[in-house]
C-alpha cells in the first residue's frame, strides 16, 4: 500500500500561524483591522484554530522582540469576539511570558495555547502547562528548534510535557532545517512513547522549501495537528504555506475541513498584498535553514548588518556556530558588533 493510499480519510487539525508567526514577518506591526480581516477570512474558510499574539507570544512586547502597536489582550479580544467557529490560541514561552499573562489571554477569549520551550528544556514548562489545563485550555507542549535534539531525546522531553498535562506535543522545526526523514524519525519516536490519546503536532518553516513535504511526513508517522500559515506569512521563509498544504491534502485524501479555494483567494487577495517583503526562500532565509538558525533571527540580522556593515549571512552563520537559540535576539547585535570590531569597523567603548 502506498503512503498516499494509507493517508486517505485521515483527519488532521490545521492551526493557522499568520497572526502570530506572521507578526515576525511584519516586524510585529499589524493593525487590529488587519488581524480581524485575516481572522475572519480564516474563520470562513473553516480553519479551526488561529494563533493570535505578538510573534514571541505572551510577554513578547519588549525591546528584545519589538513592540507591537497593540497589547496581546487587545488583539486577542478583538479577534475572539468576531469568530464564528474558530478558536483563538496563543503562544507562551516560559522565561518570557508568565501565567499572569496566560490568565489574561484566557479572559480575553483565548482557548488554546502552545507552551513552548527549547527542545531540551521541557522541564521549564510544568507550571504553565498545568495552569493552562486548569483554565480548561486546549494545551500543547511545543518543542522548539527540534533539529537540535535526537529522536530519543525529543521522546523524553515530550513525555515530560505529557506528564505535566500537555494534550498535544509538537515537533517544532523553528530553523526550517529538517528534511522529511528527520521529521519521520522524531514524530515516530514521540508516537512510540506517548499515550495513544496524546496528539502529535508539527510546526514547519519553509527555509529549505520542505514545509509541505515535512508536514506530510509527520502525518505519515501519526501527527494529527499541523501548523501552517496562509501564503506562508511567518518568520524566515515563512511557515508551511497553508493553501498549498491544503491542496496537497485534498489530492491525497487527507481531511482538513478547510475550504481550499477560499484559502487560495485569501492568500492572493489579502495576505500577499500586506507583506512588507516577499516571504520566500531567498539567500538569507535559505542560510537559516541550511545553518539551522532560528527563523526569527532573519530580520534582526538584516538590521544589524545594515548598522554595523557585516553581511547578514556572515552573522547568521556565526550565530549558528555559537549555538544561539530562540529568544537570544540580543546576541545578534552583540555578535554583529564583535565581528565589526574584528574587521576594524567599530571601536571599543572601553578602549
Amino acid at each position, binding site marked *: 500500500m502506498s503512503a498516499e493510499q494509507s493517508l486517505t480519510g485521515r483527519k488532521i487539525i490545521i492551526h493557522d500561524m499568520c497572526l502570530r508567526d506572521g507578526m515576525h514577518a511584519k516586524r510585529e506591526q499589524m493593525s487590529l483591522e488587519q488581524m480581524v480581516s485575516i481572522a475572519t477570512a480564516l474563520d470562513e474558510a473553516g480553519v479551526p484554530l488561529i494563533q493570535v499574539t505578538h510573534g514571541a507570544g505572551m510577554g513578547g512586547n519588549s*525591546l*528584545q522582540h519589538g513592540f507591537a502597536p497593540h497589547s496581546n489582550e487587545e488583539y486577542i479580544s478583538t479577534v475572539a469576539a468576531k469568530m464564528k467557529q474558530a478558536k483563538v490560541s496563543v503562544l507562551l514561552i516560559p*522565561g518570557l511570558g*508568565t501565567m499572569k499573562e496566560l490568565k489574561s489571554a484566557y479572559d480575553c477569549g483565548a482557548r488554546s495555547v502552545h507552551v513552548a520551550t527549547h527542545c531540551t528544556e521541557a522541564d521549564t514548562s510544568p507550571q504553565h502547562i498545568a495552569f493552562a489545563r486548569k483554565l480548561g485550555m486546549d494545551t500543547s507542549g511545543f518543542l522548539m528548534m527540534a533539529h537540535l535534539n535526537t529522536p530519543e531525546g525529543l521522546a523524553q522531553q515530550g513525555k515530560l510535557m505529557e506528564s505535566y498535562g500537555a494534550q498535544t506535543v509538537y515537533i517544532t522545526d523553528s530553523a526550517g532545517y529538517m528534511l522529511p526523514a528527520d521529521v519521520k524519525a522524531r514524530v515516530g519516536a514521540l508516537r512510540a512513547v506517548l499515550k495513544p490519546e496524546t496528539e502529535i503536532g508539527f510546526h514547519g518553516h519553509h527555509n529549505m522549501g520542505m514545509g509541505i513535504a515535512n508536514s506530510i511526513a509527520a502525518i505519515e508517522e501519526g501527527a494529527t495537528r499541523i501548523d501552517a500559515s496562509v501564503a506562508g506569512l511567518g518568520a524566515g521563509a515563512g511557515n508551511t504555506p497553508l493553501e498549498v498544504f491544503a491542496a496537497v491534502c485534498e489530492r491525497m485524501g487527507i481531511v482538513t475541513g478547510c475550504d481550499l479555494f477560499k484559502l487560495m483567494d485569501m492568500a492572493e487577495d489579502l495576505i500577499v498584498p500586506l507583506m512588507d517583503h516577499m516571504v520566500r526562500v531567498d539567500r538569507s532565509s535559505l542560510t537559516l535553514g541550511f545553518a539551522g538558525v532560528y527563523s526569527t533571527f532573519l530580520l534582526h540580522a538584516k538590521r544589524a548588518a545594515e548598522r554595523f556593515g557585516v553581511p547578514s549571512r556572515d552573522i547568521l552563520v556565526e550565530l549558528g556556530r*555559537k549555538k544561539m537559540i530562540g*529568544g537570544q535576539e*540580543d546576541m545578534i*547585535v552583540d555578535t554583529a558588533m564583535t565581528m565589526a570590531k574584528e574587521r576594524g569597523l567599530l571601536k571599543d*567603548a572601553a578602549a
Partner: protein
Amino acid sequence: MKKIRCALIGSGNIGTDLIYKIQRSPVLEPVWMVGIDPESEGLARAREMGLKTTAAGVDGLLPHVLEDNIQIAFDATSAYVHAENSRKLNELGVMMIDLTPAAIGPLCVPPVNLKSHAEKVEMNVNMISCAGQATIPIVFAVSRIQAVGYGEIVASLASKSIGPGTRANLDEFTYTTSNAIEIVGGARKGKALAIINPAEPPMMMRNTISCLTDEEPDQARITASVLEMIKEVQKYVPGYRLVNGPLFDGKRVTVFMEVAGLGDYLPKYAGNLDIMTAAATRTAEMFAQEIIAGTIQLKSTEVAA
C-alpha cells in the same frame, strides 16, 4: 584579626560554593553547614572542609547558635522554608542573607545599596536573583545619570547551571527580577527575560541590559558611569566583563555583559551562580566589617506579640 562566624543553610551547589568564598574572606569564617539529608554529598564535603554539620534542618543548628557565636547565616534553600528559617535565627540575633526568591527583607545589590542596608542594620537582606545581580548595577549606572522610564534585561544561562528549583518556578524569577529592576535599578518599569541555552560546551552567562532614557542620553556621562560601575562589581566578581556597548540608539542604551565565575566549586560558565555567592559574601563582609569595627550591633528581633 577577628572573624564573624557564619552558618550556611542548604548543602547544594550554592551552599558548597559559598564555603570556598567565605573561607577566603578576611572577616568571615564558615562554621556550620545545615542540610536535611544525612547522606548528602554537600554535608560530607562540608565536613571534609572542616565545618560542623547537621542534617536536621535549621532546628539542628539553633541549639549551637549562641555557644558557637554564629552572627550571620546564608540561606540557599527555597522560598518556602526561608521565612521560618529567618524568623528562628533572627530571634537569636543572627543576621540573614537570603539567596532564595522569598524576599522578605530589602533587596540588595552590593554596589547600589549595600552600605545603606548595613547602616540600617537590616536583619534580613535578599539577593534577588542571579540575573538581578548581573544587570541591576548597570540599570542603576544609567538611572543615576538620567531618568530611565523602562529597563529591560535578557539573561542567557547555560542549561547545566540551572537547577530543578529554578526550572520549575521560572515565573518567580521573572517577577522577582522585574520588580528589582524598578526598586533597586531605578527604572520606572522593569522587565526581565531568561533564556536557558543547552549548548555544549556550556556558554558563559550573558546579560544584555537595555534602558530607555526620558531625554536624549548623555553618551559620555553614561559610558563613564557604566564603566565605573563595572569596576565596582569586578571587586567581588572578577569575571564581570563588558563585551559590547554601551550602544546608543535614540533614547535606548544597550550594554552587553558576560559573567565568568571564579570556578571555585561551580564551573566557570556558571557565572550566574557565582555572582550570587560572590554578592552574598560581599554583603556579609560589609556587615562583618561594621560589626568588628563596632559601628553596628546585631540585635535579636522581638518575637511578635
